[in-house]
């Protein structure tokens, strides 16, 4: 087992016919992801094919139609920022229970409204501004390079794309596989939080250890630390980026900013240490630390 997605997940890609959508859909299909439908308003009825003509996917005008015709149960969103919030709401309205939104640059207030609208609906959405979700060797819903991941029993949750790759690559190089890897994204209002991801991994019998990669800004890592302290017995290895970041300056991600005396890396690291996590000083230590943690628990 894994969390969120597996080989049976049927994916509809919103924005399939766009440049980004087309490129990454092909990469996902190559990885083995079941992409059963695409949605582009006004292009319903056409059949999408990749640049090599290897795959054929039917395109619909609405997600509702796509779900009805193909039984899609997860959506991967590549539509431009101005239309992305609308796309998430459309997928939710069509009964999709897992939505992964890759789009970067969505207005914050749009996501505040989406978050409010989806409260209590049971819809799980990941992102925006994220690399997506992958269950290695089963299903890739995102833009991550598939070959650096390996099937296994370590869950990874991260706010940063390239740091996720860095961590997964170090694990894979050491022969340690991953159950599921979730990029929750670098925006200030993420659909899925660190805490929620850690909770899912904690409840997954096939995840033995959890890697949590955070960064400055917000209090998501502190909230996860609280949960870890109370409920998690599995080893947690953590890294927080941004020790050197000055307050008040946004470090690339809209969400990576220390403001109002909140969200600095040190307090996050301390909270995680106090919760019993193994905290790395540099990302170069992640692989080594996971190996150590697994060995200490007799899991490797």
């Amino acid at each position, binding site marked *: 087992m894994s969390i969120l997605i597996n080989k049976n997940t049927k994916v509809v890609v919103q924005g399939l016919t766009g440049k980004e959508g087309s490129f990454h859909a092909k990469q996902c299909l190559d990885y083995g992801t079941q992409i059963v439908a695409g949605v582009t308003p006004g292009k319903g009825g056409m059949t999408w094919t990749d640049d090599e003509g290897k795959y054929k996917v039917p395109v619909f005008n609405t997600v509702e139609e796509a779900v009805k015709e193909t039984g899609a149960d997860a959506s991967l969103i590549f539509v431009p920022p101005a239309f992305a919030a609308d796309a998430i709401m459309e997928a939710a309205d069509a009964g999709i229970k897992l939505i992964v939104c890759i789009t970067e640059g969505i207005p914050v207030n749009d996501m505040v409204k989406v978050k409010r609208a989806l409260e209590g609906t049971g819809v799980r959405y990941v992102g925006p501004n994220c690399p997506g979700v992958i269950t290695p060797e089963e299903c890739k819903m995102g833009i991550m390079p598939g070959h650096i991941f390996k099937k296994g029993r370590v869950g990874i949750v991260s706010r940063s794309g390239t740091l996720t790759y860095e961590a997964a690559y170090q694990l894979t190089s050491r022969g340690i596989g991953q159950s599921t890897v979730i990029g929750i994204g670098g925006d200030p*209002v993420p659909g899925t939080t660190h805490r929620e991801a850690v909770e899912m991994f904690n409840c997954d019998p096939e995840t033995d250890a959890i890697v949590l990669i955070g960064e400055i800004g917000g209090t998501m890592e502190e909230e996860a630390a609280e949960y870890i302290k109370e409920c998690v017995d599995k080893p947690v290895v953590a890294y927080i980026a941004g020790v*050197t970041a000055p307050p008040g300056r946004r470090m690339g991600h809209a969400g990576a900013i220390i403001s109002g005396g909140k969200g600095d890396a040190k307090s996050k690291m301390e909270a995680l240490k106090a919760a019993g996590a193994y905290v790395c000083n540099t990302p170069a230590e992640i692989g080594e630390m996971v190996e150590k943690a697994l060995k200490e628990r007799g899991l490797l």
Partner: protein
Amino acid sequence: MKIHEYQAKEIFKKYGLPVPRGIVAHNAHEAECAAKELGTPVVVVKAQVHAGGRGKAGGVKLAKSPEEAGKIAAEMIGSRLRTYQNPEGLPINCVLIEEGVNIDKEFYVGLTLDREVSRPVFMVSAAGGMEIEEIAKTNPELIIKEHVDPAIGLLPYQARKIAFKIGLTDRKLISQFVKILMTLSKMYFELDASLIEINPLVKTKEDNFICLDAKIDFDDNALYRHPDIQELEDTTQIDPLELEAKKWDLNYVRLDGNIGCMVNGAGLAMATMDTIKFFGGEPANFLDVGGTATVERVAAAFKLLLSDPKVKAIFVNIFGGIVRCDRIAGGIIEAAKQVELDRPLIVRLEGTNVELGRKMLEESGLNIIPAKDMADGAQKAVKAAKGEL
């Protein structure tokens, strides 16, 4: 995006919020005329810069005559205002001349996103005028908080709740206060603000509320739907290197150290800075070249790093995912040729096709110091910056 106080007050006025009468002046003569026109016994001369803490830094001064206003304006305009928020200082290109107000009591009103609950939150305190961040640390109970439901906006009862908690009793004042808060909530959503702050909101001796200061920050991601606001941007208030970076769509933040960093991905870029620091070095910047790292962008990034005279060594840290390492290596080689690198360059490449990428760098004839991993690269960069490599 930030705007000036006088611009924020124009917007406040459009929304019907009470602000003092004021006139913008670009030189001493204009300032003197403005003070005469306002005609109050005292006017306030306020430096227009994108920084808080202006009062303490000498950017807000009282003038008892139009001549004095002119004199103060002459001193301010053309100089740089150094504040605790911006020690390097920002250029003062204009001042706002405002009528004096009979202050009875000062309040703080702020509205911004509370990331813990993903909703905007009002923060109001009867201890206004002082440094609110200090109060938040020492006496957080003095700040009244109220969240706004994005589906319905602030409701009048919420504003009333705050009014009573900060000790308002006069019915006229309460009704003025409620109207101000309701308007701010409306503005926040309509204009896609990320922060609205009034510090201080003043109760006058005549028993009226007036917004003595006004600050609005906007969500960059939403500017596309507010072209009129986009026009308010004042690029003189932005670091010239950061401005240049923006042209190339590079995420760049200048720091104080001497090791220039070029990294793909914001998280990895921060982590690279941290790793340099961990090994005893100081990063000169944050720079995310993004996922594609094309020749043009890498070249622009190199130029940017080299234009900072403090930079003694450059550390390129790239994880090639979808974009293969051989293509990235090609980009680095091409860009390095274009810009004539005169400082040590340490390159760490990892990911897809890494062997080919490394080989290309080796055979390029460029003076590139290869690193086997991030820690190794950071250590080499630290040494190179000290001239030990």
